[in-house]
C-alpha cells in the first residue's frame, strides 16, 4: 500500500487512541486517588463516572477564554501551544509491537523508527521546558513567574540524572533505536526470566523513575504548581482551552515517560514469560476473570443501577477475552496488550505515589538532585561501561 496513506491511517489511529487514553487516564487517576483516600470519586456522570472525562472536555471547551490585559500576548498564547505540541509528538517514535501482517499489508506497530529515537524524545523534552517557563513569565504575575522559574530549574537539574540513567541500558543494548532496543531484550534467562535490562540495570531504572517524576512535575516534585504557596503556579492566569492544553501536556508527558521506561527497561512489547508456559493466554484469563466478576456483581447488585451497567461491562470483558483467542488477531493484540500492561502498571505507580507521598521542599529537591541522584547515576554509568568494556 502507498506509504503515505498507510502512515496517515496509523497516525490518525494513534492520535485518536492516545487522546482518548489521556482523557481516561485522568478519570483513572481520580478514581484511584479517591479509593486511596477512602472516597468513591467521580460517579455522577454516566455509570461509575465513566462519562466524566467527556463532561470535563465540554466544560473546558465552553468556558470563557480570558485574556488578561496585563500579559505579554504573543508569548502568553505561544506557551500552551509549545507545551502541548512537544508533549504529544514523542509518541510517534514509540513502538507498540513488532511487524504485523494486516490483510496482506506488512507494517510495524509504530509510527516511525528513528535511528536516534531516544535522543529525539530527550530533545523534545528539552524543548518542552520553554512552554512552562514562558507561561510563567508571560503571565506577568509573581506566582506564575516563581512557578516558571522553579520548573525550569528543576527540569534542567533532573534532565542530567535522567539522561545518565538512560545511557546505561543503551550501553547494554548498543543501539539508539527503540525497535532494535526491544529486540535486543528478547529471550529468557534459564528459559523463564525475561532478558530485560531492568535486571542488570535496576539502579538506573529507579533513578530514571525518580527523575521522570521530577521532569513531568508530578508529586512529590510538583513544586512549579504547589497550590499552597503559588496558587496554581505557572498556569495561574490561564483559563479554558489554554489551561486544558497544559493539563493535557502533563498527562501526555506522563504517558511518554512511562512508555520510554517500558521500552528501555521492561522489554517493550515482549511477554513476561515464555510462550510454552502459556503467556498467550494471560490477557484472555485476565479479561475472563474481570468479566465473570462483573457478571457476578451484576446479578447480585449492591445498587439498583448495577443491574444494568455491570452485566454490560461483563459481556464486553468476555468479548475482549474472546478476541484474544482469535488466531488471526493474536499477533497484533498480544504485543499491544503487553505494552499497555507495562505502561499502565508504571502509570498506576505514578498515581499511587501521588496518593502516598507529601511534597518536597524546594531546597531539598535541588539538594537531592545534585548531591545524590546525579552522582549515583554517574557511578552506575561508569560501572556499566566498565563491565561492558571488560566483557567485549
Amino acid at each position, binding site marked *: 500500500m502507498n506509504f503515505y496513506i498507510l502512515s496517515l491511517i496509523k497516525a490518525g489511529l494513534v492520535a485518536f487512541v492516545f487522546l482518548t487514553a489521556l482523557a481516561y487516564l485522568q478519570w483513572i487517576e481520580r478514581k484511584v486517588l479517591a479509593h486511596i483516600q477512602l472516597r468513591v470519586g467521580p460517579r455522577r456522570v454516566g455509570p461509575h463516572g465513566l462519562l466524566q472525562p467527556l463532561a470535563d472536555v465540554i466544560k473546558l471547551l465552553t468556558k470563557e477564554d480570558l485574556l488578561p490585559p496585563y500579559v505579554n500576548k504573543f508569548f502568553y498564547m505561544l506557551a500552551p501551544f509549545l507545551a502541548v505540541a512537544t508533549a504529544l509528538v514523542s509518541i510517534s517514535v514509540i513502538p507498540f509491537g513488532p511487524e504485523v501482517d494486516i490483510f496482506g499489508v506488512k507494517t510495524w506497530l509504530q509510527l516511525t523508527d528513528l535511528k536516534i529515537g531516544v535522543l529525539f524524545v*530527550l530533545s523534545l523534552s*528539552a524543548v518542552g521546558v520553554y512552554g512552562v517557563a514562558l507561561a510563567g513569565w508571560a503571565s506577568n504575575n509573581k506566582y506564575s513567574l516563581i512557578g516558571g522559574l522553579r520548573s525550569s530549574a528543576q527540569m534542567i537539574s533532573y534532565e542530567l540524572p535522567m539522561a545518565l540513567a538512560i545511557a546505561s541500558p543503551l550501553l547494554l543494548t548498543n543501539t539508539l533505536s527503540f525497535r532494535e532496543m526491544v529486540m535486543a531484550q528478547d529471550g529468557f534467562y534459564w528459559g523463564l526470566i525475561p532478558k530485560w535490562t531492568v535486571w542488570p540495570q535496576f539502579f538506573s531504572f529507579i533513578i530514571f523513575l525518580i527523575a521522570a517524576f521530577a521532569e513531568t512535575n508530578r508529586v512529590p516534585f510538583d513544586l512549579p504548581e504547589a497550590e499552597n504557596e503559588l496558587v496554581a503556579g505557572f498556569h495561574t492566569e490561564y483559563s479554558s482551552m489554554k489551561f486544558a492544553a497544559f493539563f493535557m501536556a502533563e498527562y501526555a508527558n506522563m504517558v511518554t515517560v512511562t512508555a520510554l521506561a517500558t521500552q528501555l527497561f521492561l522489554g517493550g512489547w515482549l511477554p513476561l514469560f515464555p510462550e510454552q508456559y502459556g503467556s498467550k493466554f494471560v490477557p484472555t484469563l485476565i479479561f475472563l476473570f474481570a468479566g465473570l466478576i462483573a457478571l457476578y456483581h451484576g446479578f447480585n447488585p449492591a445498587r439498583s443501577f448495577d443491574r444494568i451497567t455491570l452485566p454490560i461491562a461483563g459481556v464486553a470483558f468476555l468479548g475482549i477475552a474472546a478476541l484474544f483467542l482469535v488466531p488471526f488477531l493474536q499477533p497484533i493484540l498480544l504485543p499491544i496488550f503487553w505494552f499497555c500492561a507495562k505502561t499502565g502498571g508504571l502509570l498506576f505507580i505514578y498515581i499511587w505515589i501521588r496518593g502516598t507521598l507529601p511534597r518536597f521542599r524546594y531546597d531539598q529537591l535541588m539538594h537531592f538532585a545534585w548531591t545524590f541522584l546525579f552522582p549515583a547515576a554517574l557511578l552506575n554509568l561508569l560501572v556499566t561501561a566498565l563491565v561492558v568494556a571488560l566483557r567485549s
Partner: protein
Amino acid sequence: MDAVLFLIFAFIAVVSAVSLVVQTHPISSALSLIGVMISLAVLYLLLGAEFLASAQMIVYAGAIMVLFIFVIMLLNAGAEPKQKSKAKLAKWIGIPLFAIFIALMSYIIQSMLPKTAGVQFGAFTGGAAQEVGRSLFTQYLLPFEVTSILILIALIGAIVLARKEI
C-alpha cells in the same frame, strides 16, 4: 521533497536570525535564537547528521538557551527603548546598498571557490552516533581530549568566580 524542506527551514533560520537582531525585548531575542538553532538542527538532519542534530537540540536549544532565558527572567529585563535614528538617508539608501554589497561579495567568493559537486541530500551516511563516537575516539582523539580539559578549566573557573561573591 528534501529541497523544499531545506528551503523552508533555511528561510525560518534566516528570519529568526534577523528577528534576533531586530527585537528589542531580550526574551524575544532569546526565543529567536532558539528558532535559529532548531531550524539548524533540521538542516543537519536533512544532511544526514542525525547525532549532531539531536545534540544541537538537546544541548543548545535545550540546556544552554534555558539558562539564558532563566537569567533574563530572573533579572526581569524589560524591553529596551527603540532608538529613533534621524538619518533617513541611511535608512533609505543604506539598506539597498548593504544588500548589493552582500550579493556582490557572495558572488565573488563563489566564483573564487573551486568547482565541486553540489551537496546531495542523503549521500552522507556517517552521521549516526556509532560513527561519530568512533571518529571522536580514533581520528580526533587529541582535539576531543583537549576540548574536554578546556571545558573542565572553564567549569572550575566559573565555580571559583562564583565563590568569591559569597
